[in-house]
């Protein structure tokens, strides 16, 4: 696990270092995943580039279009407590609030939670549901990738060897949008999820029908998964309990939990839990959207 430790003072310096060392380097933000992987030998970087002190990578700012930009270094704690993320953005706070335990949330970063590529990451389904884009810094400048397309498989993302995450651009959710992220484990949030369900429901302000629905599953496949067939069952329709149930069933069918032996739960059980928690998450999101709609 021997490596050289580098601490760039700016984004440009970090980009230059990463451009230099590429596959031989790993970016360190909070470290709650990376440190374990390095010490256990699953990752063997020659260089560790610590970006944790680069202030411009932190913070939550409002964009000109009313959306938000969240810096990659924003900790789970900061997100969990951010007033700016109340209301229609709350689903992201819920995701961050359910990562591990308080000690980890004090240190773990939003960027890290995406970049380590763990399919059960709790902030990713909410980011996908919100339509977030990853803002990526590379040698050629910046590019944006929708979070829906960001993950390639367990531990793998679209990041090239000379790229790193600067932050997340999240468009403003439409009015009458309610969101809910539920994480199911037998033992509370300190475990990785058996299933994570992010449900975001937008109601048409005129007639209260479902204008948009996003249902995103974590821990149910090699990457977080948007269940589009389930979503389409809801879009354009008036929501009620049977329809929600149907959508949850469809989401379970679209899920792709690993059929092999799992330390957490067998695939059949995960699917069943998508049905159960998908229903709960959708209902919760719908109720929140209704509350906006009525007010």
């Amino acid at each position, binding site marked *: 696990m021997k490596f050289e430790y580098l601490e760039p003072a700016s984004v440009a310096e970090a980009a230059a270092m990463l451009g230099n060392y590429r596959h031989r380097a790993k970016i360190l933000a909070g470290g709650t995943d990376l440190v374990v992987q390095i010490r256990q030998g699953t990752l063997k970087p020659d260089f560790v580039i610590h970006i944790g002190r680069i202030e411009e990578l932190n913070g939550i700012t409002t964009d000109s279009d009313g959306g938000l930009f969240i810096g990659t270094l924003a900790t789970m704690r900061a997100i969990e407590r951010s007033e700016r993320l109340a209301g229609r953005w709350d689903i992201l706070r819920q995701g961050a609030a359910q990562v591990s335990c*308080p000690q980890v949330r004090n240190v773990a970063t939003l960027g890290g939670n995406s970049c380590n590529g763990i399919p059960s990451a709790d902030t990713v389904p909410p980011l996908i549901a919100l339509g977030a884009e990853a803002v990526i810094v590379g040698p050629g400048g910046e590019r944006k990738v929708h979070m829906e397309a960001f993950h390639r498989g367990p531990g793998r993302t679209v990041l090239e060897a000379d790229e790193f995450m600067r932050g997340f651009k999240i468009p403003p959710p439409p009015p009458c949008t309610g969101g809910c992220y539920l994480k199911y484990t037998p033992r509370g949030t300190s475990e990785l999820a058996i299933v994570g369900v992010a449900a975001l429901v937008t109601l048409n302000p005129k007639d209260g029908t479902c204008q948009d629905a996003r249902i995103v599953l974590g821990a149910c496949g090699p990457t977080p998964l948007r269940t589009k067939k389930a979503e389409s069952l809801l879009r354009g329709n008036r929501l009620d309990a049977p329809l929600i149930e149907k959508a949850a069933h469809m989401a379970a069918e679209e899920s792709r939990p690993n059929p092999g032996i799992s330390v957490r739960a067998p695939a059949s059980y995960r699917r069943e839990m998508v049905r159960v928690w998908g229903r709960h998450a959708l209902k919760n999101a719908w109720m929140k959207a209704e509350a906006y709609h009525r007010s």
Partner: protein
Amino acid sequence: MAARTAMKRTGKMKQRIEFEVNGKTREVLVEPWKTLLEVLREELGLTGAKMGCDDGNCGACTVIVEGQAIKSCLMLAPQARGKKILTIEGLGSEENPHPLQQAFIDHFAVQCGFCTPGMILAAKALLDENPEATEMDIRENLHGNICRCTGYVKIVEAIEAARDVLAKGPKS
């Protein structure tokens, strides 16, 4: 304390890291792959923080950094450069134990004692932030600290008692 100038290549060599531990400035010279836990225990002799798992699950390594409870087995030593760190050795003394320490004694919340330093510091961080923490808050916020001996019953009792003592008097 951290310099904002470009870092020199140091090679896979030891790094000089300065931070404040229990109110005193300390400096160590360590390989960058050492965790804060290892540095506290091996370089500074502060063996109150324990290694129960080394992968961030048991909480026995909990210390307080810049007022927040963190798991020191998950932090590389250089990440702690320039930070203020509180370990169990810096909390209270034999003559003047912190209310949490006294409560753990009075309420039999200590059995083997291995989880105890981490548990007390996690509780301190919670009570500092939420002086009115309820039993539910305590259970929800401390579930990253595992105990195998007590069944948690008297630990909760002790933290609630300390909460009440702290609520009455000046903050420690």
